[in-house]
């Protein structure tokens, strides 16, 4: 009962959907997915800043799920890999294998500056390189960490909604 009152009182927290950015990068394969993108998140060595932002992107306020994006539990179920952090040596092989486990057509999103170009970890010991050095990247999301709006916009580019 208490929960019910809370639900009624809170109502809808999701912000109204902003207009879709028509310039958001939309790789060719994304058209084939037609409004449904299942995402497997891979932490390849992130500081967890990006993870916090992903969590809020999928939280009630930004609600990335309303655009047809959904986080899933297995790369087999996924269409896109959401990779965060510079790829550490320990995760290099794991990332390749995860990429291999995804069925075609598949996409890779490099989320955050570390994933795009290793960010502050460039040349660090233990870092194998940026995500694009390991697997082909389709979409890059800049920021350290990228704001939820930016993440959502990038995902909307993929789902086309």
């Amino acid at each position, binding site marked *: 009962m208490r929960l019910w009152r809370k639900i009624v009182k809170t109502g809808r927290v999701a912000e109204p959907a902003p207009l879709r950015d028509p310039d958001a990068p939309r790789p060719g394969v994304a058209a084939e*997915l037609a409004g*449904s993108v299942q995402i497997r998140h891979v932490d390849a060595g992130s500081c967890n800043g990006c993870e916090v932002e992903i969590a809020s992107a999928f939280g009630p306020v930004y609600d990335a*799920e309303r655009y047809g994006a959904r986080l899933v*539990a297995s790369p*087999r179920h996924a269409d896109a890999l959401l990779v965060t952090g510079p790829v550490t040596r320990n995760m290099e092989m794991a990332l390749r294998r995860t990429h291999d486990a995804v069925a075609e057509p598949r996409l890779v999103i490099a989320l955050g500056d570390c994933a795009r170009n290793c960010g502050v970890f460039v040349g660090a010991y233990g870092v194998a390189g940026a995500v694009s050095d390991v697997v082909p990247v389709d979409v890059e999301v800049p920021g350290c960490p990228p704001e939820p709006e930016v993440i959502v916009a990038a995902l909307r580019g993929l789902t086309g909604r």
Partner: protein
Amino acid sequence: MSGVVGAVLQVIVIAVGSPLLVGVMRQVRARLEGRAGAGIAQPWRDLRKLMRKEAIAPHGTGWVFRAAPPLLAGTALVVAAVVPLVTTASPLDGVADLFAVTALLALGSVALALAALDTGTAFGGMGASREMTVLALVEPTILVSIFALSIRVGSTSLGSIVTATVEDPLSVISPVSVLAAVALAIVTIAETGRIPVDNPSTHLELTMIHEAMVLEYAGPDLALIEWASAMRLSVLLGLLASLFFPLGISGASTGALALLVSVIALVVKVTLMGALLAAGEVFMAKLRLFRVPELLAGSFLLALLAVAASFFLA
């Protein structure tokens, strides 16, 4: 004739509508959580997308792994054709009764469990083991509830049970029906892997039952499994509705209009129940696996009391 049309109609309604039911349930949940939700057509978009993806044969898997998804979907379709949802006069009504329907649904689960074991992964084995545990414990409740329902009619044929209720709708308001309904509702939740028995949207492998079994499937295989799970859910909800609230269901000889009304009634009933289930899930947490037997023992007790009540209060 109208029986055949009705049976075809209900298969089509279930096949097309069940992903939408899942969509509705997700939407209800999203709204209660303050989110906007992806729209009720999202499961269909997911299925369309999955059909366009490639299928994967993991190393070391074989025919069992490949045969399971079509078999699972096949059992769901057969059950959808047999169970009285739109019409009580399905031409397949004599082929399978309530026992057979239960066994067919179990056959689907078994196919999936074997496929999960076939992958040889730890998660697959875990999912299969848990699914079979739940299945084994659910069985007594189902059969005893069937027993309770069949006493009034003297038959386990679904058609006759539902027809009898249609003819005397007030007979549902009796302890027997209420107890059996509660027992079957709990069983339905357990069979379809909803909260509090299983969480269909969990990401944590160690808490999974159903999801752990399908971790290796991709593309069209996965599409079949998701579609089949949606169909099982809607068939079971529809069956509950028909057994305890058969308003609007068609009999043997009815016209096109009556069939249309039945279809609408089915859609409304199942949607309402789905929404109710989804809303209920918001308020509940998943039970620990070893608390599930308690829940099932409770439902068994209710089913047995339903039988007992039918002689207590006869």
